[in-house]
């Protein structure tokens, strides 16, 4: 019999986990050494957003650049036919993330810089996103670098927002999902109930 480490909180949370990264090669862009060093630039070890007290909003162009992540994900994984509707919610929620402390404004702008940087190498945004999300880098510990922080604090968080808020999980045959506003538990539409008989 195996023994595992557990505490009450873990026990309560059994079955509830957030997405974590693992890196797989995918049709990635060739990047120059100079620009690789930009991606691997040290930013911070902290879990707290950089310049967390600097509040503000992304410009519409910046939002469009960042939200191209959702277009890419939606194209590959076919989550929702109502992407534009979801992007309105994302826009409003990102404003909350940048207008209040801890502000993600600097983290978002750093991520947008990376998108712009890689777009300079290739016309295909798909390959840009493939590299940003899944590209392998030689550095062992990416977590404190510009690309590592963008993956952890920006791209991962947006995808974790996208799947439930857009209702995209329904494409996998589910009715409710952590983060989705399923409605009253009395409603037959809110979650899959035990079949009687």
């Amino acid at each position, binding site marked *: 019999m195996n023994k595992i480490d557990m505490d009450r909180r873990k026990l309560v949370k059994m079955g509830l986990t957030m*997405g974590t990264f693992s890196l797989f090669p995918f049709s990635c862009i060739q990047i120059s050494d100079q620009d690789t060093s930009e991606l691997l630039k040290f930013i911070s070890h902290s879990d707290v957003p950089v310049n967390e007290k600097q509040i503000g909003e992304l410009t519409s162009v910046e939002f469009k650049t960042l939200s191209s992540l959702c277009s890419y994900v939606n194209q590959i994984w076919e989550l929702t036919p109502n992407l534009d509707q979801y992007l309105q919610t994302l826009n409003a929620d990102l404003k909350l*993330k940048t207008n209040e402390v801890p502000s993600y404004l600097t983290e978002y702008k750093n991520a947008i810089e990376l998108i712009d940087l890689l777009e300079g190498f290739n016309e295909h945004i798909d390959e840009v996103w493939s590299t940003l999300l899944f590209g392998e880098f030689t550095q062992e510990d990416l977590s404190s670098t510009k690309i590592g922080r963008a993956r952890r604090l920006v791209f991962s968080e947006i995808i974790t927002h996208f799947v439930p808020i857009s209702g995209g999980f329904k494409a996998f045959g589910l009715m409710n999902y952590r983060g989705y506003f399923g409605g009253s538990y009395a409603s037959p539409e809110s979650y899959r109930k035990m079949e009687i008989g």
Partner: protein
Amino acid sequence: MKKVIIIGSGVAGTILARQILANSDFQIIMFEAGPMFKPGDRRTWLDHLVAPNKLYERFTDDLGSQVGNRHMEVFGARLFMKGGTTNHWGGLSPRFKPEDFELKSRTGYGADWPITYRELAPYYTKAEALLGVCGDSDNDDPPRYGDKFPFYPPSYTLGDGFLIKILEDHKISYGHAAVARNGNKCITTGTCDYCPTNARYTALYDLVQLQMKYEERLSLHTESPVTKILMDGQKRAIGVDFLDLETGNEESMEADSVVISSGTIESAKLLLASANRDWQTGIGNHSDHLGRHLVGHPLMFAEGVRSGNPNKFNSELGFTSLLSRHFDSPEYQSKGKMWFSPKIGSGTTIERGILSNMSRADIDEKMSAEANISIGGEMEMYDSPANLIRLGKGKTRHGLPTTKMDFEIKEITVKTRQEHADTFVKMLKRAGCKENSIQMGVLDPDGAHASGTCRMSHREAEGVVDAHLRIHNTDNLYVCSNAVFPSIAAANPTLTVSALAVRLAEHMTLKNSNS
């Protein structure tokens, strides 16, 4: 106007405040060691959605702020903030059972309660209304004497249906979990640790409402740990000393009555720290029971992986809906009663699949290929006078004294805990989990359900507070917390301490109207 100080803004203090404010013209002054927090805030909810384990990090105990030969680990279990530990509680709100109030008489362990289940039953009903508990009113174990839950329970999930077949196969009884979810507000979002609609009861949201309704009569001092109970002679509490963490100043506040609702560990420590000429080893400690009889809930769990999950079972409801109190019965009282809840889910999440660059088909296949089944339970333990809390050296980040704690679990509890865990493993095997996938474990109690350091008794020689939660040999100093429990039972303690708070409010307001 009579002034009442309540120390602690968790569920006990808040329910007490609500009932006193509703039934008297008293003024309430509440002290909370931790900071403010906002309920139902979209930005906070967004943070919780993407990083569920981080939201409450700054409100926990300091890691390593307790010492002792062996201790109950409180780090991560308790929260020091407006609303206290209800901010991250699961909401399980079962009643204790009638036999739980007669532990000593029935088993020889611990102590009996100075009140019976029958006496507490009407207060349980009121507490269920205040917490907004949904439950099965037709389930009469324990007896409800015709009283209804305020909300009916959610239907079992599709995954529950699978698990129920396993329970029935083992001839194990089960039922709907009684949980504090307002059925009119719950939108089944599954982010219950920070509910976007305040459907799950929190003392935080309750206090926000109370502050609006009783603006003139309720004041709350956050980041203000109380350091001492001030007494005039042996019998009369006259106020408190507290520390303003923002200014660093020591200040005092006078009152006509003082209620300590600071949880099991801090309530005992405050009474110890308030030692004076009349109470030389701590207020309420003439019989040396203060800080003793500490108990919690030992835990056990097992999980395994089963091939095939064509329905892609997942945690669609987000809170416990299926629960068994089969082993929480008089037959198990002399070895260790227990309740448990099984859960079933798929082996991955969609976002994890995307972030791992799995194709849509691969995610779909992985979700359908395997089901993770887990069973977690909590059990009763018996107290020992050697289980002891004392004041440690130095202060925590919340301005409270550190804790010195000695703690042990009786051998019979250790043995029964293992038996319960073995039962879980048998159920997993029967559910089709692969032998080599099954993991099991047992855990000592953490601080979440800690109880017993100021226990209730008829006589001062046997405890710290009387049946009305007043410290023996005092006129106006009360403890309203799990600390007063003479035994812990198997069930979660929140509803029971809420019922005691309703009862205490009635006592305090009636006493005033009589006088």
